């Protein structure tokens, strides 16, 4: 604990430097604006700022991305509450309740609740990360490739909660992503797999090209083919000054606490993230609420719970990335790319090798969530004007930024080709009802699973039982099985009743 306090002290010394504070503020502005603009997700905004970080030092680069991350997960709530347009899938539950409150003439109240609950959720989550990540990292050092494999499997099992509408569709996406992860030169034997004589493929498919293509280009294509010609972005109604609802927040302390805890817990599951946590939190709140019949009609408790869980998930998702080197979500996967570009390998050794940078990151997250109150209020006030950016300009510039982002990966046009190809694939996946998040998780986690599995097999003489005889691994795998079976078990129970 003392170590964490001292570390945070050093972290704050670095993070409070004008340049670093400026980077957090800039990141928050970019994140909130990008998150609020429909079509630009928080993930897109992190991807889009990635090329700008190439020339920065590691600390400003990471603080900029932290700002974008914290601001981005909140930004979509503003447009959701004002115009019934969630900026991101994770803001959908907030939109359900917030827009209804807005229609009842309580826009200021709804915006204020969303801003405050996001800030509280994010702040608690960042503190949790700062104080509990080091013991978690120490614990992680005692684990081997067997346990890492189980954690990755748990992340892959998280796919089962990503898309409840069709598990087979989610599995197709997942395995397709895992297959993409096998393309290229295999690490253990140096054998080329599925290269088919294409030299570029020997180095494999970079997951950033998959991310940019599927999310950004696919979304742009979807928008241009479904928007009538001449139609620009939706316009705001009037400038709205949100209330600071400190007194209103106290009666909602339990939904706030539940939402934050769910956010931290679900965000901490590799493969879940903010979208899952917001829906889980919304559902859970309905179980706890004394007025469940008011859900969908402007329920303040539901808004607070889902919104706090979205920002609460940020710290949880970072724990996996920082302590195990495993991204807990697509956003942290892009952030992992930023770490690697700057020569930092996230994982258990990060805390012993580069503790200053880790604690600066924690301090940055805490500051980002405090500053978000001010920036959230400013953004909510100004957003009516910013919503007037014409959609054609926005969509066109997104494609150009995707070109630049992909090219910058290896200064190779082949990455641009791959990105555009995945963009087209992303568009058709939306049309074929194939969920995109499992594919992304497959591309990211698949190669990790293979590496840990084969290392475990070499170390334990191909003994598969090692995954269930080691206690930690057995528990994690058991939880993964429960996660997969939970929907079926619930259906069975309902059937029996």
């Amino acid at each position, binding site marked *: 604990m003392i170590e964490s306090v001292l570390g945070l002290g050093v972290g704050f010394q670095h993070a409070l430097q004008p340049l670093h504070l400026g980077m957090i503020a800039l990141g928050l502005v970019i994140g909130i604006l990008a998150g609020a603009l429909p079509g630009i997700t928080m993930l897109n905004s992190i991807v889009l700022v990635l090329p700008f970080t190439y020339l920065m030092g590691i600390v400003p680069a990471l603080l900029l991305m932290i700002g974008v991350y914290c601001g981005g997960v909140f930004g979509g709530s503003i447009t959701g509450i004002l115009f019934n347009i969630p900026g991101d899938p994770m803001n959908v539950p907030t939109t359900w309740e917030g827009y209804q409150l807005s229609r009842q003439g309580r826009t200021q109240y709804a915006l204020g609740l969303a801003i405050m609950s996001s800030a509280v959720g994010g702040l608690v989550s960042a503190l949790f990360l700062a104080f509990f990540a080091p013991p978690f990292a120490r614990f992680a050092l005692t684990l081997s490739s067997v346990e890492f494999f189980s954690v990755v499997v748990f992340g892959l099992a998280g796919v089962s909660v990503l898309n409840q509408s069709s598990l087979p569709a989610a599995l197709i996406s997942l395995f397709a992503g895992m*297959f993409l992860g096998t393309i290229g030169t295999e690490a*253990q034997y140096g054998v080329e*797999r*599925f290269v088919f004589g294409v030299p570029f493929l020997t180095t494999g498919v970079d997951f950033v090209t998959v991310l940019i293509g599927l999310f950004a*280009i696919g979304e742009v294509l979807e928008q*241009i083919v479904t928007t009538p010609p001449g139609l620009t972005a939706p316009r705001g109604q009037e400038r709205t000054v949100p209330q600071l609802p400190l007194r209103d927040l106290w009666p909602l302390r339990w939904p706030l606490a539940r939402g934050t805890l769910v956010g931290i817990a679900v965000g901490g599951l590799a493969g879940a993230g903010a979208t899952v946590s917001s829906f889980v939190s919304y559902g859970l709140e309905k179980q706890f609420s004394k007025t469940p019949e008011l859900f969908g009609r402007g329920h303040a408790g539901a808004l607070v719970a889902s919104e706090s869980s979205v920002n609460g998930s940020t710290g949880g998702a970072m724990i996996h990335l920082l302590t195990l080197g495993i991204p807990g979500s697509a956003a942290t996967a892009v952030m992992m790319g930023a770490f690697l570009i700057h020569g930092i390998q996230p994982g258990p050794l990060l805390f012993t090798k580069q503790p200053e940078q880790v604690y600066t990151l924690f301090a940055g997250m805490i500051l980002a969530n405090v500053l978000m109150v001010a920036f959230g209020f400013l953004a909510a006030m100004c957003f009516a004007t910013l919503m007037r950016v014409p959609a054609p300009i926005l969509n066109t510039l997104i494609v150009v930024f995707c070109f630049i982002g992909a090219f910058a990966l290896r200064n190779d046009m082949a990455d641009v080709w791959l990105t555009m190809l995945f963009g087209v694939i992303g568009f058709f996946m939306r049309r074929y009802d194939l969920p995109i998040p499992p594919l992304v998780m497959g591309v990211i986690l698949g190669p990790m699973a293979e590496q840990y599995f084969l290392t475990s097999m070499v170390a334990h003489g191909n003994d598969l039982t090692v995954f269930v005889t080691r206690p930690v691994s057995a528990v994690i795998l058991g939880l993964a099985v429960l996660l997969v079976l939970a929907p079926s078990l619930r259906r069975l129970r309902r059937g029996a009743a």
Partner: protein
Amino acid sequence: MGSHARVAALLAGVLGSGLLFASTWPLDALVPRGRLGPGFWPRLVLIGLALACLLRLREERRVRSGDAASAGVLPPVSGSRLALGLACILAYVIAAPQVGFALATAAFVAAFMVVAGARRVPGIAATALLGTVILLYTFIKLVYLPFPKGAGPFERVTLALYRALGIF
């Protein structure tokens, strides 16, 4: 998308997985006996992919035989705009190495804005030109990204443009 096309796509998924599965056996040629080779993991993944496609096929059959409505209703697609949008993107990626990033980007921004719904010519021209200049300054002068300069005469045009803008 039609139900028959969906079934065909899923069957293609099963077939494709099978063909890729067959291509993994030579990967293990040099692996000592008793060790898992580089073909093991892809085989596992491809089996999973084929099984998932079969499960989805079964689900598809249930939906077709039952009276359950198809999930998720997406807004209708403008086929011509999709074709034009894809053509613009394709042309951009093909043209960038040939005519250079600067010229290709300016042309792409103008063309794609029109496809995306913009109609005001001054706005389109201003966005294409100013946007490209800002991008060039940001990513070449500040970030040093070696964007394609084009081939033959286009390379000379690009270099002249960079000099005129003070980038080189």
